[in-house]
Every structure is written in structure tokens, then in C-alpha cells.
């Protein structure tokens, strides 16, 4: 029960921190960025929209900062994120929904592939200490994980798109195509996703391999593994069911904790490939000074990360009987 309370506290506080950062940052920054944005859009938006923006960013209002804060929280509770300026007059929520499926698909597929592949390789590397996988792969992937994601993406574009002409340069589908659920469109989408996915997997798999290998080395020296050997169980069964299953637990926790960083890499990769997901939209929002859209995207990414951590928590409890019994 205590664990659940602690996790709940963590989730609520993180969400609150993200919301409050959104509220406080534009008001705290020197030179009042929101006012600069308003000056930029003066005359381009109708008066009601301008007034809504003034209210949202606390300009020309006699409300105290606390009243503004309460109102801001109230709006969010009703999912009122305001109106996107660059996509005027579409509400921010709708604009975000255009980008979300692309990112979720890309992130989901690459995470599963890289987790499965990395865990298996790490497991084998630890099982065969001193073998090729063990002595070669860890240092190689330590170096690969230090490469700038976006540059690796640029290099992929250079070799596979510009030099070899194998794959498209970027974006999510062919130019001029309309989004529809037909086979030809899905095929386009997959072809366009190959390079970004490849980049993400290449840069994220090293972490899985390394942590899995290191955890596995620890579990392999446990008594229950020795016992399994003494019983003469099949080596594959010892590797997967005895050592591997236990080594995977800290891996999942570690993944949840580094998710914030993984998401950052994902968004940057999208920007390089002009992939029509959340990351690319984020940059566009910044470049067009569309602060309402930018705030909503920041909040949404945070919620997505929290959601993934919740899933990791549940998976962990499901895999580890010790966690279940302590609750």
C-alpha cells in the first residue's frame, strides 16, 4: 500500500510540475516573451482571439497571479488548451491529435524492437562471457550511444536517400498524398518510417544490451542458478527462465527512469526527418511563436512519459512476485 501511495504522489507531483512550469515560465522570463508574441500577431488575429491570448498569458489583466493560476488549472481540468495561433482557429487539442498517432506508432514499434533485440543480445553476451558478443558489443554500443541522434539521422539520409536513393528523404508519406486507410498509403508510411526507426533503434539498443548484460552477470552468480545447473536443467531454460527473467526486472525500472531522455532523442529524430509527429510540430510551434500549442505539446509529452512509466510499473509487478506481495 505504501508503494502505491508513493507512486501516486510521484505521478501527481510530476504532472503538477509540468503544468506549473507551463504557467510560470512565460511569466517569469525576462523581456516577457508572451507580450513579444502578441506584438508579432497584432492585427493578424481577430480581437476575441487576442483577448483569449491575453487572458491565457496574464497580460493586461487586473487579476492577481493566484487568480490566474486557479483559472489556468480550471481550464486544463476541462481540457481547454486554448487556440493554436499557427493553425488559427483550430483548437490546440485538435492540432495535437494530428501529430500524435505518428509519434505513438514510431515510438511504440521502435521501443518494442529495440527492447526485444537488446535484451536478447545482452542476455547472450552475459551467458557467453568472453565470447564475441561480450567483448565486442558493449564497447561498440557505448560509443554508438554517445553519437548525436540527429547527426546519425542526417548521415542516414545522406547515404540511403541521397547517395543510394533507396529510401525517401523524410516526411511521413509521399508528397501530395492524402491520409487514408488504403494499402498503398500504409506502404508509403512504412517506407517513410524505415530510416527514422532505424536511427532510433541503433541509438537506443545499446542501453538495453549493456544493462541487460550487467544485470545478467549478477543473477548468474546467484545460488538458484547454481541449483538449476546442479539439477541438470537444459542450459536454455536456465538462461531464459532462471537468470534472464530475474535480470530483466531492473532493466524495466531503468527504462522507465531514462524514458525522459529516450523521448528527447525520438523528438529530435522526428525533426531531422521532418516526420509529421509531435517533435516536428513542437519545433514548428516554437518557430512560429505558437506558445499555446507549444505548452500543450510539452504537457502531452509529459503525460505520455508518465503513462509509459505506469505501464512499466504494472509489468514489473506482474513479473516480480515480491512487489505484488508487498502490496
Amino acid at each position, binding site marked *: 500500500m505504501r508503494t502505491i501511495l508513493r507512486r501516486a504522489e510521484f505521478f501527481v507531483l510530476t504532472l503538477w510540475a509540468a503544468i506549473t512550469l507551463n504557467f510560470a515560465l512565460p511569466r517569469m522570463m525576462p523581456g516577457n516573451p508572451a507580450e513579444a508574441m502578441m506584438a508579432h500577431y497584432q492585427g493578424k488575429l481577430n480581437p476575441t482571439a487576442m483577448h483569449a491570448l491575453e487572458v491565457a498569458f496574464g497580460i493586461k489583466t487586473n487579476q492577481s497571479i493566484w487568480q490566474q493560476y486557479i483559472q489556468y488549472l480550471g481550464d486544463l481540468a476541462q481540457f481547454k488548451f486554448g487556440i493554436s495561433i499557427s493553425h488559427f482557429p483550430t483548437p490546440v487539442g485538435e492540432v495535437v491529435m494530428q501529430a500524435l498517432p505518428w509519434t505513438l506508432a514510431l515510438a511504440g514499434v521502435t521501443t518494442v524492437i529495440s527492447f526485444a533485440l537488446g535484451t536478447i543480445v545482452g542476455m547472450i553476451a552475459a551467458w557467453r562471457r568472453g565470447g564475441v558478443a561480450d567483448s565486442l558489443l558493449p564497447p561498440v554500443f557505448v560509443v554508438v*550511444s*554517445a*553519437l*548525436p541522434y540527429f547527426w546519425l539521422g542526417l548521415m542516414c539520409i545522406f547515404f540511403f536517400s541521397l547517395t543510394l536513393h533507396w529510401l525517401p528523404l523524410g516526411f511521413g508519406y509521399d508528397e501530395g498524398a492524402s491520409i487514408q486507410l488504403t494499402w498503398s498509403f500504409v506502404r508509403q508510411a512504412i517506407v517513410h518510417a524505415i530510416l527514422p526507426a532505424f536511427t532510433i533503434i541503433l541509438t537506443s539498443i545499446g542501453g538495453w544490451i549493456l544493462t541487460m548484460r550487467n544485470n545478467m552477470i549478477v543473477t548468474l552468480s546467484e545460488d538458484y542458478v547454481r541449483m538449476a545447473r546442479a539439477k541438470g536443467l537444459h542450459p536454455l531454460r536456465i538462461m531464459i527462465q532462471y537468470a534472464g527473467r530475474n535480470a530483466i526486472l531492473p532493466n524495466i525500472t531503468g527504462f*522507465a527512469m531514462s524514458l525522459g531522455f529516450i523521448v528527447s*532523442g525520438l523528438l529530435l529524430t522526428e525533426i531531422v526527418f521532418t516526420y509529421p509527429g509531435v517533435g516536428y510540430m513542437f519545433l514548428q510551434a516554437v518557430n512560429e511563436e505558437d506558445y499555446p500549442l507549444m505548452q500543450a505539446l*510539452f504537457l502531452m509529452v509529459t503525460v505520455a*512519459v508518465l503513462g509509459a512509466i505506469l505501464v512499466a510499473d504494472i509489468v514489473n509487478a506482474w513479473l516480480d512476485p515480491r512487489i505484488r506481495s508487498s502490496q
Partner: protein
Amino acid sequence: MYPYVAAEEQVPEVRPEHHQSAVVGVLARVGTILATNRKAVAGLLLLLVFVVGAVFAPIIAPYPPDATLFVPTMGPSRAHLLGTTAFGQDIFSQLVWASRQTLMIGLIGGLAATVLAVLVGVTSAYFGGLTDHTLSVVTDVFLVLPALPLMIVIAAYEQGGGFWVLVAVIVITGWSYGARQIRPQAQSLRNRDFLTSARARGESSWYIILYELLPNMTSLILAIFLGAALYAVLAAAGLQFIGLGNPNDLSWGTMLYWAENQEALLTGSPLWVIAPGACIALLGAAVALLNYGVDEIGNPALRATRRKRGRRAGP
């Protein structure tokens, strides 16, 4: 984006080094690492090349970095080792000068983030109770707040950040990972005999932390610094690349920004993109290799056991 460091599962090695300043401890540890680990030596040599390049930039670079003196978009030649940019600048000279800002961001951002991480992690572990609880929750919150979006939001409100904005953003988003690693190790050290006896002698908390606790965590702190420095370099390069730095600064990140801005890959000067990125990658590799060495020293079980190949698999 953040390089994976396996230090979290480290078994703390406890060799009490009484009354030794943290600096001496670090130096001694660095010495051991270099004497025994080839990966660390390779990393250090690579890092040294970059530092020498940055320090002696005026001697090494053949032309001033910003001078738009030459024919634009030339391929590599003897006069221009890496060719010229679309603005007619010498790419090699830019590359050498740009190393200065990138290295500085790594050093200062990495140091500041490490200091904050140690401060929070040690305070949390040493004082325990409500302090521990509060600081741990704050650390966890900062750990999961998505770093890049937060950096973009701050940099966007700042209307293009210069050097110090970048450093601030990096510290805000980068300290929590280290703090999370420090806490458990400081916690396990706290109840060791040599710390208990120091408390019994009536030493002040700050004396115990500075002279008894920290010297025994030097390899972890070193690993955290290397990780944070690497994060700082990559994060700054990423922000500058997407145009959220000051485009008039000269660093590898802004070089990439201008190259992308001028569509260098499409217009036949790929070296403009390849060279600064390769430098970031090599610098990152150098730090990562050093870090890997530090990790293996701190946790001998992780070392590759090449000589034991003939043995049966497993322990």
C-alpha cells in the same frame, strides 16, 4: 539522448581513505584507471587531441573562422582541407575554432550538473527522513520531465539562448540522473563503521560528508561527471542544431545549424555536415570510453574476461 551508464547497479567498494581530500582521491583513482584500462586510455588520448586543438586553435587553423573570403561550396583541396561553406568560409578553420565552445559547454555544464547532483544525492542520503523523501521525489520528477521539450520551451521563451542559457538549461534537465545514482551509494556508506566512528568522535556533518563520505565515492562521482559532460555536449549540439542557440556563436552545433539551413547535403557540400557531427561523435566516444573504463574499475565483475575463454560458459 542520455548515455546509458550502468553505475546504478554498482556494488560500492569501500576502501576508507581517511583524511584525504577529494581531489587527491580523484587523482589517485584516475591514475589507477589509466594504468589498467585500455579503453580509458584510448578515450583520454582522443579527448586530449580535442583539448590541444581548442587551446592552440589560432595556430592550427589556417584562416580566421568567420572570414567569408573564399569561393563558396568548394570541395576539399590542399588549401581547404575540408572545402568551404556556402558562405565562403574555410570549414576546417571553423571546425578547429568551434571546438572551444563545445568543450566549454561540456566542461561547465557537466561540472555544474555534477555539483548539483552530488549536493542533492548526498544531502538526501545523509540526513534521511523527510529531507530524503522530499529530495527523492523532486529528483524523480526532474528525471521524467522530458528534457528536450523542456529545453526547447525555455530556450524558445529566451528567444535564442547564448552560452549561459544553454548551460542553465542543461543543468536544470541534467542533474537528476546523477543524483539518483549518488543516493543509494551514499546511503550504504552512511552506516559503515568508519562513518559511525566519525560521528561518535563528534565530527560535524559537513566534515564527515566532505572528508569521509565523498572521497569514498570518487569513482561514481567521476562517472557521473563524464556522463553529465557528454549529456551537455549532445544537448547543446541538439539545441543549436534546431536553431535554439545563438546562431552567431561558433560551435559544432551552430555549424550543423547553418549547414542544414543552407541544405548542404543537397547542394554538394556534405563535408560541412559530416565534419562537425563526426567531431561531436568522436568527442562523445572519447568521454563514453573513459566512462566505460571508470565503470569497470568501480565494478570489476563487469570486465570482459577474455583470457578465460576455454572455460565452461557462465560462472
